[in-house]
């Protein structure tokens, strides 16, 4: 892996939704880069902007009311946010695959799964009908669906949740994309099925060198999967670090609070440490730090100025005015 090579570079992305109740500032200046073959975890609570960020990259947000107010997203020398619809369509599903949370609503209920996988293959490659179906069978075997040939004729309702999610992964993989964006792919599944899907992703990753962006609210799921993790809060990235460093030396007070509030299977539980207060309202553009009202280290500057990401280690960035390592203001 060339350390300087980048497959996707996002800079200052801002997405807003203009609703009847006011403007929702869903994404407030997000910048990150993704290397080829890298597994990037994105953690945040509902409303932290993690899904909207990734959807915005391929303009998959409803527009209107949504609007990408500013930013660039460079992928293969194309700015995804500025390019025309035809180019974007060839990227979606072709070079960037998507896996959504709920496979029942993202698969077409009146088409067989074989047709739906083959459709994706035929749209983005020169393959004929027969060839595409063979490829579909191959993909289903790859994601661990038994009797793949027979399964091609199944409709989504005939499959269980875990099997449907495997079909979604097969569709995402269909054109050997360079990036797969997975939006909470295991949230709707039971833990034993989630473990199956995680195991498949682990195997596929080693085999294909596809970069994966895995969006989740579960800090446990990505601990064993990701190389690097972005923590999002209030539409911004508040911390970015290598996975080992994030879990062993979390630097942002929000990341620290999140990790402390988890009961752990491998540790004896005492009183849980909770983060007081509520997630921020996104109707106001952030004036200060959006975590300030819940932060144990808050001081004047946090309420006046929104901190931007600063380097605190090798590829470890944090957006906070308080230096939690030194115990003083930055």
């Amino acid at each position: 892996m060339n350390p300087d090579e980048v497959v996707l570079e996002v800079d200052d992305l801002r997405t807003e939704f203009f609703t009847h109740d006011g403007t929702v500032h869903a994404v407030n200046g997000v910048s990150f880069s993704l290397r080829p073959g890298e597994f990037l975890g994105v953690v945040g609570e509902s409303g932290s902007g993690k899904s909207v960020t990734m959807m915005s990259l391929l303009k998959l947000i409803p527009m209107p009311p949504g609007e990408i107010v500013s930013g660039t997203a460079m992928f293969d020398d194309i700015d995804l946010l500025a390019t025309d619809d035809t180019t974007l369509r060839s990227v979606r599903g072709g070079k960037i695959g998507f896996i959504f949370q709920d496979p029942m609503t993202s698969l077409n209920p009146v088409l067989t799964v074989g047709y739906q996988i083959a459709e994706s293959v035929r749209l983005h490659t020169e393959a004929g009908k027969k060839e595409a179906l063979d490829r579909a069978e191959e993909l289903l075997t790859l994601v661990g669906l038994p009797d793949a040939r027979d399964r091609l004729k199944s409709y989504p309702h005939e499959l269980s949740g875990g099997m449907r999610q495997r079909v979604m992964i097969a569709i995402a993989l269909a054109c050997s994309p360079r990036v797969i964006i997975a939006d909470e792919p295991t949230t709707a599944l039971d833990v034993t099925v989630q473990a199956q899907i995680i195991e498949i992703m682990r195997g596929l990753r080693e085999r294909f060198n596809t970069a994966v962006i895995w969006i989740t609210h579960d800090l446990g799921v990505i601990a064993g999967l990701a190389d690097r993790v972005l923590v999002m809060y209030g539409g911004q990235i508040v911390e970015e670090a290598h996975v080992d460093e994030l879990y062993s030396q979390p630097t942002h007070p929000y990341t620290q609070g999140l990790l402390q509030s988890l009961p752990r299977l491998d540790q004896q539980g005492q009183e849980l440490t909770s983060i007081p207060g509520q997630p921020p309202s996104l109707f106001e553009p952030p004036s200060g730090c959006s975590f300030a009202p819940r932060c144990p280290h808050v001081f004047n500057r946090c309420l006046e100025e929104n901190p931007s990401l600063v380097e605190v280690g090798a590829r470890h960035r944090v957006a906070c005015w308080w230096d939690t390592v030194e115990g003083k203001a930055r």
Partner: protein
Amino acid sequence: MTDTTTEVVATRAAHEEPLVSVRDLTKHFPIMKGLLRRQVGAVRAVDGVSFDIYRGETLGLVGESGSGKSTTGRALLELDSPTSGSVKFDGLELTTMSNSQVRSLRPRMQMVFQNPHASLNPRMTVASIVGEPLSEHKAVTNSSERGDRINELLTMVGLRPAHANRYPHEFSGGQRQRIGIARAIALSPDFIVCDEPIAALDVSIQAQVVNLLERLQNQLSLAYLFISHDMSMVRHIADRVAVMYLGRIVELAPVDVLYEQPTHPYTRALHSAVPVPDPKLEASRGRVILEGDIPSPAHPPPGCPFHTRCPVARANCAHDVPEWRELKPGHWVACHFADESGW
């Protein structure tokens, strides 16, 4: 929990009358077909579960979706009448009681629901939601007493008396769950069924609600049936844990035993499937990955319900139903090979 408390939990059965005692509880939902809506089968949502809950303790009930944990909670409180079996609450048999008799016991047994958006009436103010059980069961005599009690309850769950005249939509998910909890404790119950009370909440809010539930338990010496699919949260809050699979309890033990020396293959697989928020540990630990999905409760497999996915199933598992037996005091399991270790 320390070893001594584990022993206390384990030997409690011998000395104390349980508050809730469930024996062979079943709840089957009929499947109707055809013009005459004849019954052609049944979904065996709960298929013979037995357990006790003691005063002031928390029994965790874990399992995957479709395993029957919520149905157990509802059948227990007579919200859905059980098909058969016995439920004793403080020595009184609930299943044979009339509705009005059960109603008279309602103040002592309450429920907190999963979805705080759906379980609160959007047209009622917080005061009327929390105050409704007080008026229904004539727990207060006049409106000033009622108002005082509502304020007291709101303070107990970490809300302000000023919130009383607002509507549910003005609150966040975590605050709504607090309102639901205030309603449940309004009549000073002995027992609350908490049906996935934190599943719909954000991670940073879950800890707040769990801490609140624990604090109230200490203050009011409540007993909880804590239904959840979150193994790590159950370990934190429960004294004893029951694991459900396909309508049956497959293992029940004090929390430390269940998490450190699980004997049922399904319990072990569940533990192994839960991701640990520690990259180093995740990289090093072994995994038991189950194949396939939970079978349909309309057609449960014969023999041991788990044999279709069990990594150590043998020939007789497919036709012999494993006996529900006490392996050690307080540690119950339903598996033919539970006493063989080291697989």
